[in-house]
C-alpha cells in the first residue's frame, strides 16, 4: 500500500510518520502532486496557523490537489480544519470539502482555558474509522479553534459547547484530536483508516 503524508509548513508531520511506523506502516512525506495522487491513502496532518498554512498550500496549488483527491484522505487537527470551508483564524477561506466552519473558542468562563490542551472524550462515534473505539474514549487535543457540528459530524466532543471532533464526507475523513498522540485509542483509529 502506498501511503502519503502531505508535507507543508505545519508542525507535527513527522509525529504522524513515526506513529505509522510504530504500527507497522511506512509512508512518504511529500508535497509532490504525482506522488500524492498515486497514493492509496493520504494523510493531511498538521499543527499550525490556518492563514499561513493556506497561503503555503495555495502557492503550490496543493489546495486544489487535495480537493480533487478520490482515495481515502485523513485530515488531522489543522488538516481537518483546512478541509472545512472557512476558518475564523486569520479569516481564511479553506479547501471546502466539509460544510462546517471553523470558529474560535470563546467563553467568559475561566474554567475553560483556550486553547484546549489535553485529553477529552469523543462520543456519538460513526463510520468505520471508529471501529473498536469505545464511546467516551479519551483522545488528545491541542487546539484553539473548533469545527462546528453539522451534517458531516462523525464524532462529538464537549468543550464550552459540543463540536465536531470528527468529520466525514465521501472519501474524506477528519479528526480534530491527534490519533498519533492518543496512545492506544489513537493507534486503533489510525489502523482503521489504513484498512478502510
Amino acid at each position: 500500500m502506498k501511503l502519503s503524508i502531505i508535507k507543508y509548513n505545519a508542525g507535527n508531520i513527522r509525529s504522524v510518520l513515526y506513529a505509522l511506523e510504530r504500527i507497522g506502516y511506512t509512508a512518504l512525506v511529500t508535497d509532490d502532486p504525482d506522488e500524492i495522487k498515486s497514493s492509496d491513502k493520504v494523510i493531511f496532518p498538521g499543527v499550525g496557523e490556518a492563514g499561513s498554512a493556506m497561503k503555503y498550500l495555495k502557492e503550490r496549488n496543493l489546495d486544489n490537489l487535495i480537493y480533487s483527491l478520490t482515495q481515502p484522505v485523513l485530515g488531522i487537527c489543522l488538516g481537518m480544519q483546512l478541509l472545512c470551508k472557512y476558518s475564523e483564524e486569520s479569516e481564511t477561506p479553506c479547501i471546502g470539502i466539509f460544510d462546517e466552519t471553523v470558529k474560535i473558542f470563546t467563553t467568559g468562563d475561566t474554567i475553560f482555558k483556550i486553547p484546549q490542551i489535553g485529553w477529552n472524550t469523543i462520543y456519538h462515534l460513526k463510520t468505520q474509522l471508529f471501529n473498536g473505539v469505545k464511546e467516551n474514549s479519551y483522545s488528545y487535543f491541542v487546539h484553539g479553534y473548533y469545527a462546528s457540528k453539522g451534517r458531516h459530524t462523525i464524532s462529538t466532543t464537549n468543550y464550552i459547547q459540543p463540536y465536531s471532533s470528527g468529520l466525514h464526507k465521501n472519501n474524506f475523513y477528519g479528526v480534530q484530536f491527534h490519533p498519533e498522540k492518543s496512545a492506544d485509542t489513537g493507534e486503533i483509529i489510525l489502523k482503521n483508516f489504513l484498512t478502510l
Partner: protein
Amino acid sequence: MTKRIIPCLDIKDGRTVKGTNFINLRDAGDPVELGALYAQQGADELVFLDIAATIEKRKTLSELVNKIAHHVNIPFTVGGGIKTVDDVNLLLQNGADKISINTAAFKNPDLIQQLAKEFGSQCVVLAIDTKKEENGNWYVYLNGGRMKTETKCFEWARQAVELGVGEILLTSMNHDGTKNGFAVEITKLLAENLPVPVIASGGAGKMDHFADVFKDASADAALAASIFHFKEIAIPDLKKYLAQQKIVIRL
C-alpha cells in the same frame, strides 16, 4: 478535559538528571527508554528540558527529540536554550509537539509573537522559574534559576499570554526538590486569572500533593521528575488515587 500528569525528564548530555533546587545532579536513566515507559504507564504527556542548554549556550539536541518521537505515543514538549524561530522549527520537524521557552522569551518578548504567528499558540509553552522573596513577592528568575529579575511572576505571565503563549509551565524554586508539595499560592494566582492552562511544577513528594494542586490551585496539569524516576510514586497508582479523589483523570 482531564487533569494531566506530566513526568519531566531533565536532560544533560543525553541523559536524564534531576537536581535539588537546580544543583547536585543525579543520573536517572536513558530519556528515550524512560519516556516510552511513562507513556505505557499512563502518563498524559512528557516534558524534556535540556537543562544545560542555556547555561552552556548550546541548543537542545534535535537527534534526541527525533528518537523520542519515534518511541512515544503521547505528546511531548521540549525546552532548553531555544532562541529563534529556526530552533523551534527544527524541534517541531523532528517530532516535538510543543516547545517551551524561558530566558530567551523574557529577553526578547517578540519571539513569543513570532512563534505564535508561525506555529500557533498551542505549541508555545512559556516556562517560568519563580521564587518568593522575603517581601512576599514572586519574582521571575532566568538562566535555570541563576539570575534574578525585578519582574513579578504574574506580570510576566500576563504579558506573555497577551503576546501569544498557549500554556505556562510554572516552577516554584522555593518548592522544587523539597518534596513538600506544590506552590499552591502562585499556581492558583496564575491558573485562576489567566486564560491559558497552567502546569504546576516543583515540590511533588506525595500523591496528596497532586490532589491539592488540582483542587486548591486549579492547576490544569502537574509535573514531577524525581518521584517518578526513582519509583517513589508509580503513575498508575497516582492516577487511580486521583480518580478516587473525584479528580477527572484519564485511566
